[in-house]
């Protein structure tokens, strides 16, 4: 249960000329690492708005009325654009519906794929350096505190040595990656030469091979020469023969002669071997060389440090927990803005101390607490304040309408309602922030006794090693090209080398969508958001793209948010499904729950309005259209179109009823007092059929 993204009580509205349109009304969901969450609903149900809020590209007239989107210790709704910039595309990527409009028509495909890699290369390095230094300093501080007074010199020496080892390892790593990258590039260039020569296109084999010889020296380093001494000499010889053959043949024809190609292939296979071998652990190697006992010593001390840091944070957490009930009662009563902000500041300083900074997976609730709370308080006051302009407009329009009605005219238009926020809702926003922290900390305190500090310390050292290695990862245009071509192969584009230099209009719809996916994956994101990626494509291509997304998800351990209006598409993709209607999640469950045991009338309607291959009954179309969200209905938004609607549906919004651990739905039909309702025949028949087919398959 590793949650990578949490959306809590999100509310988004849009200012329009006709009033405020409530697009998303209080939705919450979690995305787990390596899982797919599908959001299903009609157009206008707010599914795209939700995903756009996650990636921070809401339209200019949007108002985020409340809620949090927590990712990696940050609240995505409250961080600055600069910070969002580091996350968008890098950590969270998005694939849009129309592949043509998301590609630049006048830039070659290759450039579009490599653009982000090249741009991010430098910032990524400096970022890694910063994180590395911070983490090491934090660890050092805790180690000193744990070992007690007088241990400073020892710990300082230890940390210094680790740093030295890391620096040395980085140097080795840089050499290593340099030669691997040079090898990779060389393989690519040779491929290109052989490809061009095969097509009898204009190329100069002699100059190219000479160039390769020069570049072979870049590939070689001490390490490689030790491991591949004989092969490298052979490769050199092969290149020399290739050059000879090419020189001899030059007068006769431009085409690269057969045996030259053969020789190049030999060199290539060696280079490929070099490029593909497992990357060694340089830190371990260096430390072994320097002092075989150092790592153990350091780990011992580090474990102490981690333990100390954790216990200190735990004690503070207990303090916070003791304070929280008082805070809650404070926010339940009357308070002024200044008072509230003061309380917020006070508690936040304790909470900041209660965060264990040596934690690798950050507890988002604690990190985002201060910004969330102070934001909720601000909203509490600013939304209640009278908007004079709005009042005037409302009065004017009401007067006009009443005058017309008084004259006996039939008035079709409605007065745009005033933007009213209920105090309860605003207070609720504040309280949920407090409650969530309470919940988290209670759980953390309970789980504290089972903490394995050695594992934790090992984790932090690995983390340091990784960041150290990242500081030397740089990307040149040539490397980016090789990476892009690999990526294009991965997403199933044939002849990527030719395709790399083509323009978007030279690709078919399915191929364009693949390119878009390749661009989204270029930065190796954690989360991929797919906004109706297959709606513009036809059946066969759709199946291919879905298979591709599934394959990539498994290979890269991606978490996917998949947005669609077609439940049929989802069956293959989703682990969890959220059905949305009129800005709310009406049913949430695993794919099995939704397809084999749907509970909400809207889910029934969606399922029964699409025919499958065996359907012969009349389709159960949903009558009418979705409600106008400027005037959201008082009760259940689906009541108007729902043939099972009861009186209470029009009066009160149903809460989420829990059906099982994973499955819940918001409908009054699940209330114990509700009458028993039969599923539509078309669905019961289908489920029976599916179960039968499943049984036959299993047997």
């Amino acid at each position, binding site marked *: 249960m590793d949650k990578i993204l949490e959306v809590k009580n999100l509310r988004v509205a849009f200012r329009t000329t006709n009033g405020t349109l409530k697009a998303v009304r209080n939705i919450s969901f979690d995305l787990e690492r390596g899982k797919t969450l599908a959001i299903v609903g009609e157009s206008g149900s707010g599914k795209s708005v939700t995903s756009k809020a996650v990636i921070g590209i809401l339209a200019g007239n949007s108002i985020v009325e409340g809620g949090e989107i927590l990712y990696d210790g940050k609240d995505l709704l409250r961080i600055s654009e600069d910070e969002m910039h580091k996350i968008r595309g890098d950590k969270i990527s998005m694939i849009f519906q129309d592949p043509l409009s998301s590609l630049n028509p006048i830039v070659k495909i290759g450039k579009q794929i490599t653009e982000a890699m090249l741009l991010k290369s430098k910032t990524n390095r400096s970022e890694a350096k910063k994180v590395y230094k911070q983490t090491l300093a934090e660890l050092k501080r805790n180690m000193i505190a744990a070992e007690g007074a007088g241990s400073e010199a020892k710990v300082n020496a230890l940390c210094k040595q680790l740093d030295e080892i890391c620096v040395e390892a980085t140097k080795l790593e840089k050499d290593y990656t340099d030669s691997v990258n040079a090898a990779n590039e060389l393989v690519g260039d040779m491929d290109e030469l052989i490809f061009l020569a095969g097509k009898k296109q204009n190329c100069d084999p002699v100059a190219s091979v000479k160039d390769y010889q020069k570049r072979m020296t870049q590939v070689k380093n001490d390490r490689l020469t030790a491991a591949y001494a004989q092969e490298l000499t052979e490769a050199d010889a092969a290149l020399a023969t290739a050059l000879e053959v090419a020189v001899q043949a030059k007068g006769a024809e431009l085409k690269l002669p057969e045996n030259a190609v053969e020789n190049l292939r030999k060199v290539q296979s060696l280079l490929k071997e070099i490029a593909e071998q497992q990357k060694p652990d340089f830190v371990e190697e260096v430390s072994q060389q320097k002092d075989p006992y150092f790592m153990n010593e350091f780990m011992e001390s580090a474990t102490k440090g981690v333990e100390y840091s954790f216990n200190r944070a735990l004690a503070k957490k207990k303090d916070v927990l003791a304070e929280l009930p008082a805070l809650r009662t404070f926010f339940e009563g009357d308070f002024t803005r200044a008072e509230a902000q003061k309380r917020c500041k006070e508690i936040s300083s304790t909470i900041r101390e209660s965060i264990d900074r040596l934690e690798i997976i950050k507890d988002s609730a604690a990190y985002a607490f201060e910004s969330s709370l102070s934001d909720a308080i601000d909203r509490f006051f600013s939304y209640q304040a009278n908007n004079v302009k709005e009042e005037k407009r409302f009065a004017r329009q009401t007067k006009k309408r009443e005058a017309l009605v008084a004259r006996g005219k039939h008035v079709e238009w409605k007065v745009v309602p005033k933007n009213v926020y209920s105090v309860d809702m605003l207070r609720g926003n504040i309280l949920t922030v407090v409650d969530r922290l309470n919940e988290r900390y209670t759980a953390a305190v309970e789980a504290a006794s089972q903490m394995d500090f050695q594992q934790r310390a090992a984790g932090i050292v690995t983390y340091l090693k990784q960041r150290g290695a990242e500081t030397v990862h740089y990307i040149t245009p040539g490397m980016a090209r090789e990476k892009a071509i690999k990526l294009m192969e991965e997403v199933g584009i044939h002849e990527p080398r030719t395709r790399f230099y083509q323009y978007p209009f030279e690709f078919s*719809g399915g191929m364009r969508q693949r390119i878009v996916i390749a661009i989204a994956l270029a930065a190796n994101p954690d989360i991929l958001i797919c906004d109706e990626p297959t709606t513009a494509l036809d059946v066969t291509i759709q199946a291919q793209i879905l298979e591709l997304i599934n394959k990539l998800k498994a290979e890269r351990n991606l978490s996917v948010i998949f947005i669609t209006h077609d439940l049929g598409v989802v069956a293959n993709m989703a682990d969890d499904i959220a059905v949305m209607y009129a800005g709310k999640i009406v049913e949430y469950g695993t794919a099995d729950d939704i*397809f084999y045991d749907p509970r909400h009338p809207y889910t029934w309607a969606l399922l029964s309005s699409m025919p499958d*291959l065996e*359907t012969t009954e009349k389709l159960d179309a*949903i009558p009418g259209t979705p409600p106008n969200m400027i005037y959201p209905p008082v009760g259940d938004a689906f009541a108007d179109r729902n043939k099972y609607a009861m009186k209470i549906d029009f009066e009160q919004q149903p809460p989420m009823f829990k059906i099982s651990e994973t499955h819940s739905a918001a409908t009054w039909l699940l209330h114990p007092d509700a009458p028993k309702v039969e599923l539509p025949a078309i669905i019961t028949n*289908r489920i029976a059929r599916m179960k039968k087919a*499943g049984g036959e*398959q299993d047997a």
Partner: protein
Amino acid sequence: MHNQETLLRVEHLGQYFKSLKAVDDVTFDIKKGEVFGLVGESGCGKTTTGRSVIKIYDITSGSIYFKGQRICAGTRSYEDAIRNARRRLAQMKKTESDPAVIAQKRAELNLVIAENRRQIKAARFDHQHSDREYAKTLIAKVTEEYQQAVAACNDPEQLKELKIKYKNDLRVAKKTKLITKIQMIFQDPIASLNPRMTVREIIAEGLVINGIKDQAYIDEQVYKILELVGLTREHAGRYPHEFSGGQRQRIGIARSVIMRPDLLIADEPISALDVSIQAQIINLLNELRDELGLTIMFIAHDLSVVKYFSDRIGVMYFGKMVELASSDELFAHPLHPYTKSLLSAIPLPDPHAEKRRTRVSYNKLEAHDYSVEGPTMREVKPGHFVYCNTAEEEQYKKELGL
């Protein structure tokens, strides 16, 4: 419900755009009262076929018969035949030396050329004047009725009325085109409605063009149709932008149905709509079909919907019709490898089945060996046509257990 009367017959239809063969040698017929589905991936020529039938394009070769009358005809095949004959003539002159044989062959080939020229002339005539011919028959019918009525009538007042009616009917008859008996619904309901016209104007446009001037009659018809497609009278005065996607598609349907067509070509009418609205439109088309006795040519790429809605289905691949059968037969026993691959790609609302589903991929070059014998459309089983050669036909028959 359906009889065996053929409403539309498409013979060897070819539609070339310069060197691109968008549709090549496609033959099928649509029986009266049935729904004929046309499926295939985008770019396979299914929309082009639909548009050729309604004469949006001038077809390159082949002919289309509607209600027994040829409405479209292309000349490319005849031109090719003439060119072939000329080439053979030229070749023969080089190889043959006996003047008697040459004279005989020349006479034969000249006959062929003359025949094809005649065909070209006939085709051009039919293609251009089919509507005029149809109008002629209508005019004759109206005139005959009038003359009979005049003969039976003595009252001068009534005679005057009859004369006015005759004049109106004659105008309508003159302006009526056979092609208006085929109507089309387009994919994008937003793009296919003129934003500057009210719904009333949009729906009534066909009637107005047809020469009807009686405003009261037009209004009555418009209201009737609006109610038939599930809208209300009040909607007539509004503009298209005031409607939702589903309602716009209803307006598109109303516009085509008001002409009382015999054949309705629905070109992906639901692809641009929401799921819940899709079902509404399918149900509506189903109702209209029963009520008005419509024959529908349904073009779509969503196979589950086509299966649900159609009686017979034609599968197209790169401009060719590769398989044609009744919908149950096609889904139960797909024969052509492309059909199999298409069916294997359908997503199902069943997670367990989806996990087991294996997609079959189709590669034209790997799947067939046409080096010895080229493929033609063959009837493997009564009513089940497949594009194949003899060897494949044998194999398919074995598959079916025949």
